[in-house]
């Protein structure tokens, strides 16, 4: 697909620039923690620029025109980063660092760790607006910017979400079975959340020694 046909128009380079800026910031925190505490707080950290097809599909689903403006202004996850941490407190460490970056605003923040979803889903969702030269200018404020969606969670929350995702796309589970599986997944989520707290407590205790 040639550049002119991209739903991102001429903005792909700025998306990539902001993506790598955020990844560098995450790396820096990782290195600091490694140096001070002797372990890498991040288990893995996948990132992507949302694919063309997937972005167009999202526009259609939301009944908005398939335009560059929709992709960069109405939809906020053109840049996606998921930070998967070993321990609970590290989630908040990264959150605090990212929201304090210069030229960065919080657009939306949802703490589904403290306030879990009814099905047991836990994760910290952050949508950031990063002001940067070369970004899109919208009708309201004149500062060029792009958005990034950042999900922060622990390894066990990530494992749980992966399993729950499988269920969502498995259509041929009979009714009563479906109910049992949903209930059991909720139970697992609550047990994992409990274990995350225990592991954090043990880590803190080791640290005090």
């Amino acid at each position, binding site marked *: 697909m040639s550049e002119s046909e991209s739903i991102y128009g001429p903005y792909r380079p700025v998306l990539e620039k902001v993506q790598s800026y955020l990844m560098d910031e995450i790396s820096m925190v990782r290195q600091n923690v490694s140096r001070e505490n002797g372990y890498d707080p991040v288990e893995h950290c996948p990132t992507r620029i949302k694919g063309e097809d997937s972005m167009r599909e999202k526009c259609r689903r939301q009944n908005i025109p398939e335009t560059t403006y929709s992709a960069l202004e109405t939809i906020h996850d053109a840049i996606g980063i998921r930070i998967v941490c070993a321990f609970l407190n590290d989630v908040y460490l990264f959150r605090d660092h990212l929201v304090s970056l210069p030229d960065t605003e919080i657009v939306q923040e949802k703490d589904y760790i403290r306030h*879990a979803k009814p099905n047991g889903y836990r994760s910290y969702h952050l949508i950031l607006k990063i002001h940067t030269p070369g970004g899109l200018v919208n009708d309201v404020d004149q500062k060029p910017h792009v958005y990034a969606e950042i999900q922060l969670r622990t390894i066990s929350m990530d494992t749980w979400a992966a399993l729950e995702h499988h269920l969502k796309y498995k259509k041929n589970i009979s009714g009563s079975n479906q109910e049992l599986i949903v209930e059991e997944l909720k139970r697992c989520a609550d047990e994992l*959340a*409990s274990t995350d707290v225990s592991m954090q407590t043990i880590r803190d*205790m080791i640290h005090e020694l």
Partner: protein
Amino acid sequence: MIILLAEDTRDLNRVETAVLEHAGYTVDSVFDGQEAIDAIEKNGYDLVILDVMMPKKTGIEVVEQMRRENITTPVLMLTAKTEVDDRCAGLDAGADDYLAKPFALKELLARVRALTRRKKEYGDEKLSFADLTLDGSTFELVSENTVRLSVKEYELLETLMQNRDRELDTDYLLEKVWGSDPEATPDTVWLYVSYLQGKLRSVASKVTISGERGGSYRLLMAVREQA
């Protein structure tokens, strides 16, 4: 509620079965110790009633074998022997109670009721404190969110909730929750209090546990910033 009755005297077996069935229990009747073992290994029972003197295997041998196989079903012994030593032998072998023959059928029913009642130790009971519920049947700690507690976490929090107006010191909690566990120390109590403090936060409860390492603890309502 299903009861296994092992009694080799035919007439007595018939009468006891009829009385228990009349009281609403489902009864499997057998006539010797081997039949009793076979039935116990095959089916689940809420209570086992064993005559001591039976052919093939005595009631004491049956209860010993049950406990060796980790079958914890309550056992009521029926004994013609009224010597103290014989009664103790049955209890020491793993029986939960005994009844000396001849006995009143009314007393048999009362003991059956008492022994089947005892099964609900954790109960299906729910304890509440402020914005918190602790569910004894699932070990769930519920406030805005839910987490599942381990057995010791549950017992510790249950104790604190049952004594909400009192400070409980480390020694008391150690004895009450960890009993005779030789590995448990005052630091174990502190670690489990710390676990619970974290878990109370993770269900977004306003309740917290106050107290210092090695000191006394109690539940408190805290004014906490909601994240």
